[in-house]
């Protein structure tokens, strides 16, 4: 009973708050969707659209058999080197699966491991890096 009373109270409070806040709400006219609507409510939005301005990318790093143990810092950066998306210390002879996030508009990233540098297509969900020359 108490729960129901709280629930009813919350709903009434919500109604009051919505009335108070209704100054923020525009009067809307429902029309058929148009290719370039001025009103967001007219947008035709796919169920699958995630509304994100970023993308997650998986980076598969393939190690290389090497006579000694080498570790260095792998960095994933924008090609203009303004933004560092990932920084991690890796052993050169081991495989790694790493993840990083980039703005959706980013199409390439610069991957460095010490002096080894490669520009990699960043449009797939999974990208690859190894230590061999390109």
């Amino acid at each position, binding site marked *: 009973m108490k729960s129901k009373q709280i629930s009813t109270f919350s709903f009434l409070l919500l109604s009051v708050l919505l009335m108070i*806040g209704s100054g923020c709400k525009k009067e809307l006219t429902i029309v058929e969707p148009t290719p370039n609507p001025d009103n967001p409510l007219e*947008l035709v939005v796919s*169920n699958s659209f995630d509304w994100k301005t970023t993308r997650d990318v998986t980076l598969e790093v393939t190690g290389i058999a090497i006579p000694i143990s080498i570790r260095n810092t792998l960095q994933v950066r924008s090609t203009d080197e303004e*933004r560092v998306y990932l920084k*991690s*210390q890796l052993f050169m002879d081991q495989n790694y699966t790493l993840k990083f*996030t980039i703005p959706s508009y980013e199409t390439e990233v610069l991957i460095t491991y*010490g002096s080894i540098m490669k520009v990699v297509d960043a449009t797939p969900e999974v990208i690859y890096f190894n230590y061999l020359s390109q």
Partner: protein
Amino acid sequence: MRYFNIIVVSFILILASPSVFGQYEVDFDDGSTSYYEALCWDISDASVSTSQPIEGNRSIRTDKLNSSIGIVISPWVQLTGSGNLTFKHRIYSFNGSRNLKVYLLSEANPSGELILDYDYSNGTTQTQNIAITQSGLYQVKWRFSGSGGNSRGQLDLISIPGTYASDPSNDCDPININPDTDGDGVPDNEDDYPTDQYRAYDNYYPATGQATLAFEDLWPSDGDYDLNDVVIGYSFKIVTNATDNVVDLIGTFVLRASGAGLHNGFGFELPTVAPASVISTVGYDVLQSAGYSFGSNGLESGQTNATVIVFDDFFRITPQAPSTFGVNTWPTQQAVPYDTLTVVMVFMNNGTPGSGGTVSLTDLNISEFNPFIVAGMIRGMEVHLPDYVPTDLADPQYFGILDDDSNPATGKYYKTAANLPWALNIYEEFDYPVEQVPITDAYLKFDEWVQSNGVQYPDWYQNNVGYRNAANIY
């Protein structure tokens, strides 16, 4: 300094390497030319070839020795001062005059010391065995030469009396022992905390500057889509140790605007972090009277996942100017200076994690943090990004009423029946619309971004030519 480093490396290798008296052996059977180049073999006018190898699957084979000179240079090797350099070599399709010279190269003598000068008289395989008395860092250079004809030099089964000492990740220079003051395994020149053994790297999200969270607060009813009811700039600094475990998470939250009639709070959940993995949380600003409950580690109580309430009331932190509506959404009203809250979460203390165990940088996955506003200071009325799951303390009675089309059974949350959201997370600093102007009237490519499923104009929020109606942006 470079020679000093070489001396230091030599000394360390002599003292410490269990294989110091071993041989560095290569048969070229493990990969292609690019593989051996990655291991610091310098192979010029030659390649690792499967064509008629001397032994095994592959040998070094030069280009035709008519106009070119085939050169192979080994990685740096720490020679021991005794032992033999051995290798097999021959001229394939022998004719004419062919020669092989072998040198030992050092940093002091980069042109090399000649240790073999061999003129071929036929194409049979030769097994070479050269006593090496030098010690220190050297490379071995093989130089095949000749003129005319189609002959090629071949080289295989190399054994050098010493240990491999090149660094493939550093231009193949001799291994350099960079100082590591705190002994955490990360050299000082790469360590953001060179004197702190428990910290190594600063990682940032977003990678630079601040991202922006923009909310509508009338959920579950539609708003006016000016996306300025609560506008928060944010960034995270994630401090990790040498093994990529999170030590500290520092969130900076800038209260930029609130074009709202409601008093709204703000928090975030870390969906992959158990509360017990967080040792402490400080820096949030919540009055006791606001009704929240916190654990001893500063996280909100009653939550399955680590949840931080950053502030309880935007307008208490950043009050409206007298006789105005909201904060920083009407261009004609007095601008209010931003307030900033810095929340510091400690995951490891002097190398010891919280009782919930360590959290790796990958597991933290900070880009998937789950921010929300608490609309009207009603704790259960959380408003999240589209399809982000409410916390345990969200009140489910609001789902599916009015304009909300949330359906926990299908994982649809905080979207209308037309899939419109109540919040956006923008990777950069976002210049939000002025009061009561829908985002489509401020950002001219927004609709194309949405209706193309994000394919067109993924940079719609940037200040590019033709992207904005500046008059409609605060």
